């Protein structure tokens, strides 16, 4: 190995092949810029989460979770109706959306033949891309203005369900595709009818993935606000009546945030913290479960 100084070695390279210092400088400059962009993105996340935690923590106490809001201007109280509302909405929308989504996914994957498969898929993707407020308008027109006649929890749940179905369908579809065909063929060869094969063989195999899909969709819907503005409206009183307006965490956050009261602002942060924690916990749980399955 020749031991020589840098310039000596570089001098042996024919001039036409030497790397100009300009190229080196540009490389270094651009890579730093790229790193900066990455840093900025991560910093953004940390800043936002940081504020949510810092501003939200003061609001968290027992009252927060158990009491309903005080009259305007009074300090104290909690967001219990909104919490309950979120749970109710999640439950109802889940009951509607999850089976429908699974059914759609089954239809697309298992009954691939037939003219219906592509339009169904296409329609699902289309809905997935719609602004949530537009879905809110639709459900409003259909239920609030039409079938029910007034703002109601059911309408809110339906609007959430509409948002959830494409998410469930898409994820379940992926999971179903992962089930090896050999399994299906073996069952069919034994003489089982198609639907039985699906119910008894395919679905159980894909069970974990289906659960993941359901949970993911629920987490997503927990954070939706816009459609609820037009359908569930919000409620400061504890209510589980599906035909009455109902509160929800995101709605509460919105109302409190745009109000002029500091106490309400703090509560808005607190509610945000709860939302973020719940969604975060769900996400982490899913990841852990996914990793376990791989092992």
């Amino acid at each position, binding site marked *: 190995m020749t031991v020589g100084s840098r310039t000596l070695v570089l001098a042996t390279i024919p001039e036409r092949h030497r*790397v100009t210092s300009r190229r080196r400088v540009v490389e270094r400059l651009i890579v730093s810029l790229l790193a900066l962009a*990455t840093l900025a*993105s991560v910093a953004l996340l940390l800043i936002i989460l940081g504020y949510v935690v810092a501003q939200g923590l003061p609001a968290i106490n027992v009252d927060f979770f158990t009491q309903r809001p005080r009259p305007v201007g009074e300090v104290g109280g909690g967001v219990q109706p909104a919490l309950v509302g979120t749970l109710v909405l999640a439950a109802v929308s889940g009951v509607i959306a999850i089976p429908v989504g699974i059914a759609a996914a089954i239809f697309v994957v298992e009954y691939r033949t037939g003219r219906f498969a592509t339009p169904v898929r296409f329609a699902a993707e289309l809905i997935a891309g719609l*602004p949530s407020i537009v879905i809110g308008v639709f459900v409003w027109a259909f239920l609030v203005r039409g079938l029910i006649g007034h703002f109601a929890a059911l309408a809110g749940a339906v609007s959430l369900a509409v948002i959830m179905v494409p998410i469930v369908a898409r994820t379940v579809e992926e999971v179903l595709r992962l089930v090896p065909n050999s399994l299906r063929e073996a069952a069919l060869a034994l003489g089982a009818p198609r639907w039985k094969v699906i119910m008894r063989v395919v679905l159980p195999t894909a069970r974990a993935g289906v659960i993941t899909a359901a949970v993911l969709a629920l987490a997503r819907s927990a954070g939706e606000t816009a459609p609820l503005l037009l359908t569930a409206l919000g409620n400061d009183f504890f209510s589980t009546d599906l035909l009455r307006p109902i509160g929800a965490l995101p709605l509460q956050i919105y109302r409190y945030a745009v109000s002029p009261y500091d106490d309400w602002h703090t509560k808005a942060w607190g509610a945000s913290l709860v939302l973020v924690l719940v969604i975060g916990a769900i996400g982490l749980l899913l990841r852990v479960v996914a990793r376990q399955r791989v092992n």
Partner: protein
Amino acid sequence: MLVPLTLAAIALLIVIDSWPSLSRFGLSYFTTSVWDPVHLVFGAAAYVYGTIVTTLVAVVLATPVALGASIFLTEFAPRRIRGPVAYLIEILAYIPSIVYGLWAIFVMVPVMRDRVEPALQGSLGKVPVIGQLFSGTPVGLDLLSGGVVLAIMILPILTAVSREVLLAVPPTQREAMIGLGATRWEAVSLAVLPYARPGIIGGIVLGVARAFGETMAVTMVVGNSSRDISGSLFVPGYTMASAIANQFVEADSELYFSAIVEVALLLLLVAIVVNTIARYLIRRSIADRPQGAVV
């Protein structure tokens, strides 16, 4: 169970369509910005303008950062941190938009009003043509803030899609450039990026789709007051989505309602078109690239 999905999609379209037909101001609906609930004159030009402006700002701000981060994470970052950091940026996508809105209204807007906007006015505001953008008293709750919040919200999507697209570029392309004697950045900019361009554009279009439909976060910071179409970014305004969210519950007359629903219809159509284009572009880029593309 299966067909409702398709039907729902179509029903969505039809129902929304029928109501605004109650009010047909014709094409002038889109060109006038007069919005007078009392005298029942409606023109949505301001909303369209606001949507376009905020979306434009969002794309202009988010694209370089997202692209920079995704390039860094696929080509230059130390291997061990690539996954985790990418994950961190993806987490941004799971934060509910209402939380973004909350953070924006209490943290971002004051900063915009007190630091960023005056600074912009002082520097770029002096430049001949562009200066118009930064004229007027910095208010904080304006189109610029709306754009910035949207930029933060579409950042994770843009980054994620760009990453996927970049990873789909065949390694032989990069290899060929390096074999020719290129530095890492040169290999990326001359061989990888051009190859990935359609997919990246698809990602941007997807970001645009998201920005269009975003309601809550924008509503909280965009001002929701003025309907003047001036050339400045420091003016409060509306986007189509925020207009619907704000005024829907207040609308008290048939015509008022249908005018708003017509905005929803517009939003719906735009969302469908933009989403379809985006998915098409991305799909083509991630699947095997067709050979023999003519330059």
